[in-house]
């Protein structure tokens, strides 16, 4: 029994990490005035004891690295958005559109261990409307009767 618990726990810890998957951007978007750069999916997983005591969870600061944090629950929308922001900064995107998040869980060892997973997908875009040109400086006109 002990060996089974250890084996299951070890295999479950392997899955506690964050991943970031990049896909080619879609050709059409619901949002107008933007240029799609890429579609991405970020995911995070954790391992809980008795459904509420965190054992390990993925490190949102290092996706695709197999990194995780002990005794911390990092599954949150804020951390998912943080990973989106990091990828947006990397590819030069200014916005994320069609952002969706789903959270699921699965039991291991009859609920002694519970693994939760959170997946967020989004399309990173850049505004296609160029920034308005700066207004030309108006020349000062001296008029009679007015102070300089």
């Amino acid at each position: 029994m002990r060996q089974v618990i250890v084996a299951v726990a070890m295999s479950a810890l392997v899955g506690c990490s964050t991943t970031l998957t990049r896909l080619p951007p879609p050709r059409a978007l619901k949002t107008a005035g933007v240029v799609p750069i890429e579609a991405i999916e970020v995911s995070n997983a954790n391992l809980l004891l008795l459904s509420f005591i965190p054992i390990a969870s993925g490190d949102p600061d290092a996706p695709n690295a197999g990194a995780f944090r002990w005794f911390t629950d990092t599954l949150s929308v804020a951390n998912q958005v943080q990973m989106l922001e990091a990828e947006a900064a990397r590819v030069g995107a200014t916005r994320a559109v069609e952002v969706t998040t789903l959270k699921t869980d699965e039991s291991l060892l009859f609920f002694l261990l519970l693994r939760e997973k959170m997946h967020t997908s989004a399309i990173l875009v850049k505004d296609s409307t160029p920034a308005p040109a700066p207004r030309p400086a108006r020349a000062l006109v001296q008029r009679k009767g007015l102070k300089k």
Partner: protein
Amino acid sequence: MRSLAFALALTSLTTGCFTVDSASSALLEPDADEHVIVRNYGWNLFGVIPLVCGNADIDSSWGSTFFKDEVTLEIAHGVLSKYVADSGREICDIVVMADRKALWSVQLFVVHISLPWVVQYKEVNVSATLVRKGGTR
């Protein structure tokens, strides 16, 4: 040892959880300003008799509710709508997911074996982006 493990597992069964999780980001600007996920899960007996689930009254001090089925898309969407109405915004990019699973399933390495559906796990998930009223999206 087995009895203790079974008792502990049974204890974790007597809870559900209703959560509203959100985050703001400059990435969602200029129209949207918050990404929200509303989730609830619970347990049913034989798929029809509700045992326990998360309490949809998020202001309540009780996190779970018994013998009542609040794991429905209507209730989750209702909570999201109230959350949005209180802040004077609108819902955009809404995605919903509802799922049921057999409770007793054993995973032996790569093989996943589901046992008869005596107790069933049910969950509902609503994801949305909130925009200010009058936004372009």
